[in-house]
């Protein structure tokens, strides 16, 4: 859709259009999703003869990246709501529309993919009206594939979206809605200028820190970065100043000019808080600094991602990282591997628990190993979500089972249309962090969708489960689980570990335990044969080299007590089945 608009406005020639121009991260193209919001500026000559400059920000749809949407919407005057005419309204559609409405944006409803044989235009229009209360009389019918209707969208923007307003009495103000670190140019900030103008002759001040920087270059995205003389009020573009430290540039900050200081900053946006936590460790301890550097750079691009140094007995020195959700976590890990060529191990993902002690104190932990002595604990509270799930009627039974199995309760059921239901449920975040979304998709053959919002803390019968290998607790595997589910989860982890731990000369017990109470146990049998049979002339160096290589391979494993645990074990434990 965005590609088609670029083509219509002649921002790009047809031959320049690769599939999904705006999704330029390899990961995005591979997965066919948008992770980062992409800004682009274009010129459009409308039917009324006037020329307009549009600034478009293509945003992600996945629930994990809602914060990207929030930030983008803060920079905009209007939003195009694109609904798939075949898929209909999805749970995240509802969420994103709510965000736009909260910002008082003009919403232009568009039905896309009307060319598909299974498109259901009247049905989907009714869904939008019923669920989102958006009148669909003026909805635009589009096929991004054939180009039908795309011009109508551009005309509707001209007619409906108000031009940017500016207040000359406020001083120069621009909102930073994204940024990234370029090894050669330092921090590149994506901004929307609300008032005044900024050029490379100016000195800017970041309002949250008061630090000043000299502007080196300003420009716009058409769609790749193009240098401009000046960025004016209403325009979206980038600023490169001599900002060398990632930490100096905060997303949501207001940029002002030293010679035209703003009276007050723009309303930023809610700071997003990570919900899911996991330890990330370098496989090779000497990569620690490299990992730190990578995390620092990634966190610059990603306001929602946090990290703090921690250490583990099993894994050495690493970082506890916070993510918005599982997809977010996966993407960060994948980017560390690809863009920073790091071999990393990540620990079992968890959430933030609030622990109330018998002495009235409250302790907040994001890592199970910090759980206080159980005898001092009055209760443990865990974060709950209010999740909205839209699910085909046929799969509703299985979906309800899944929700119940994950300790969720369904509070409300609503009909979306003849074929689908919308469930509102309350579910512990801990239960969905691993694979809930995958399960939901597989139950519904891809048709169900989910959105969630944070609902607060509730007390539950939660316990810390340790995994012991040969009697030694492996801190990286410790997790907090509901007591009723501990045995099942413990057995599952033990079974998987047994397959991954290489046999040694002695039998190795793998146990799951709550306190001193062992609740599951498996055994890795002893290795009985590990020998070179013939060892004559030429065998000697061949076998020695083989042993040397095996020895080196062993070094890559993590030593816990007397047992070596291969990296794969840490990774496989995370994948439940």
């Amino acid at each position, binding site marked *: 859709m965005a590609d088609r608009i670029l083509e219509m406005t002649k921002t790009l020639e047809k031959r320049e259009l690769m599939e999904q121009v705006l999704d330029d991260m390899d990961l995005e193209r591979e997965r066919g999703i948008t992770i980062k919001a992409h800004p682009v500026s274009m010129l459009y000559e409308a039917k009324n003869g006037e020329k307009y400059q549009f600034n478009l920000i293509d945003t992600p749809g996945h629930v994990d990246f809602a914060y990207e949407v929030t930030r983008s919407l803060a920079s905009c005057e209007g939003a195009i709501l694109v609904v798939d005419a075949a898929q209909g309204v999805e749970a995240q559609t509802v969420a994103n529309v709510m965000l736009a409405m909260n910002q008082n944006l003009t919403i232009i409803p568009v039905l896309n993919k009307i060319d598909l044989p299974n498109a259901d235009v009247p049905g989907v229009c009714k869904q939008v009206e019923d669920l989102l209360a958006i009148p669909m009389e003026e909805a635009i019918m589009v096929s991004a594939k054939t180009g039908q209707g795309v011009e109508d969208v551009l005309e509707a923007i001209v007619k409906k979206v108000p031009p940017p307003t500016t207040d000359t009495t406020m001083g120069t103000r621009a909102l930073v809605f994204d940024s990234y670190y370029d090894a050669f140019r330092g921090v590149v900030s994506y901004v929307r200028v609300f008032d005044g103008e900024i050029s490379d002759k100016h000195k800017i001040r970041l309002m949250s820190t008061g630090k000043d920087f000299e502007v080196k270059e300003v420009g716009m995205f058409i769609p790749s970065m193009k240098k401009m003389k000046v960025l004016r009020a209403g325009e979206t573009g980038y600023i490169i100043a001599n900002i060398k430290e990632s930490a100096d540039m905060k997303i949501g900050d207001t940029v002002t000019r030293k010679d035209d200081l703003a009276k007050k900053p723009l309303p930023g946006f809610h700071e997003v808080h990570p919900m899911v936590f996991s330890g990330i460790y370098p496989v090779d301890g000497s990569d620690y600094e490299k990992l730190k550097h990578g995390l620092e750079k990634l966190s610059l691009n990603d306001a929602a991602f946090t990290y703090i140094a921690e250490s583990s007995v099993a894994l050495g020195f690493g970082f506890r990282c916070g993510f918005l959700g599982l997809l977010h976590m996966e993407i960060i890990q994948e980017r560390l591997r690809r863009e920073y060529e790091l071999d990393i191990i990540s620990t079992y993902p968890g959430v933030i628990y609030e622990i109330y002690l018998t002495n009235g104190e409250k302790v907040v932990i994001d890592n199970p190993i910090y759980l206080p002595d159980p005898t001092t604990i009055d209760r443990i509270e865990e974060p709950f979500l209010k999740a909205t799930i839209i699910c085909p009627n046929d799969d509703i039974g299985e979906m309800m089972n899944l929700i119940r199995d994950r300790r969720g309760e369904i509070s409300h059921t609503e009909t979306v249309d003849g074929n689908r239901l919308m469930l509102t449920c309350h579910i512990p975040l801990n239960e969905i962090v691993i694979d809930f979304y995958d399960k939901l998709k597989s139950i519904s053959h891809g048709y169900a969708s989910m959105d969630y919002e944070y609902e607060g803390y509730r007390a539950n019968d939660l316990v810390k489960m340790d995994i012991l290998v040969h009697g030694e607790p492996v801190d990286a595997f410790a997790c907090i689980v509901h007591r009723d589910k501990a045995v099942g989860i413990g057995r599952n982890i033990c079974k998987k570990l047994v397959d991954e731990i290489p*046999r*040694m*000369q002695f039998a190795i017990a793998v146990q799951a335990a709550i306190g001193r109470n062992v609740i599951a146990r498996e055994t890795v*049998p*002893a*290795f*009985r*044969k*590990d*020998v*070179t*049979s*013939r*060892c*004559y*002339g*030429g065998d*000697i*160096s061949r076998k*020695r080299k083989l*042993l*040397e*290589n*095996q*020895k*080196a391979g*062993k*070094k890559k494993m993590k030593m816990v007590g007397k047992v070596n645990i291969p990296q794969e074990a840490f990774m496989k434990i995370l994948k439940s089945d």
Partner: protein
Amino acid sequence: MPGLYLHVPFCVRRCLYCDFYIVPLGEGTLPKRLRDFRSLKHRGFLRALEAELRALPSAFRPETLYVGGGTPTELPLEDLQHLLQLIEDHVDLSKVREFTLEANPGTLDADMVDLIANSAVDRVSLGVQSFDNPTLEALGRIHNAEEARQSFHLLREAGIRNLGVDLLFALPQKNEKRDESTLQTNLEALAELSPEHVSWYSLEFEPGTAFTEMRDKGFLQEPDGEQADLEYRKIRNGLRELGYTQYELFSFTRKHPCDHNINYWRGGEFMGCGPSAHSHSHGARWSNPADLTLWTQAWLHGHPPETVKESLSPEAKARERLITELRLTRGISPATFAAETGFHPRELIPAELLAEWTRNNWLADHGDHLKLRPPAYLISDALFREIVPSL
């Protein structure tokens, strides 16, 4: 006590578990063209071997000789005779105490045995592998158990007083009963034949062999460690009852150990001739190309073939020797070891490992000798892995 190894790379066909460098030349009544090809190969090999033997250092006086393969006795009678003659002509045999020839059942007849008995060869190692016919077939051997017995008797009757038999255990699993009875069959055959020497190896699934491929595709199952351990115990006990002494992980003898092999394990020097043969001298190791044609061409053109060289630091050499010498059941004398390598074993094995291994009854450490204990024999690579140089 330097040794000389000669590699005769010919076999009738490749056994399913074998990863040695060999050239399978086919069997039975060959068409004339192939027969010619075979004899050309043999002739080329012998001419090149002559050149290589001539090129040995003039001061080289081996104390042990080993003609192995491949199957040296696959050579036609006159070619084998030629080979033995070449050795007598070009190698100074004045110091030789042991001269072994490897032979395979199915390739020996009275004439050949006669030739061997009347040569400088004083020890024959017979590659039997098993005295159980279904097992022999499963291994892809060219002979049956009866032929193995016949070959042995022929050699014995011709007056060879030092005979060795090679056997295999830890074979792909059939069933426990069957494996048990095969083991008994083998022990009974040994009792009957009474060879001076037995090498009873555990079968290894080497990369690139038919067995490994069959295993990976699920057509046969590698025995588990428990099974191998059980068989190994029975073999050690059975051979002890028959009067054999174990002197290395897989080597047993009633009379003399094989000095040629002991030299390998004690880090001694040796020269290797023939394609793929390795040499070890003056701290360096090198190997001939594992390619009959390349190797032959080079020598026939009057220059040595390009070898793959490896030189080890003194410490790496000491570590290597430690892991091979510990294969010997008598173990090592730390004082001698230190004098000969410059490193005391205690420098090479961290103290805590030494303590742990002693505690586990894997190692006996009595100051004046250091040796593996039987519980460690079948898992010795796990210990050796800790000793080899770190990459």
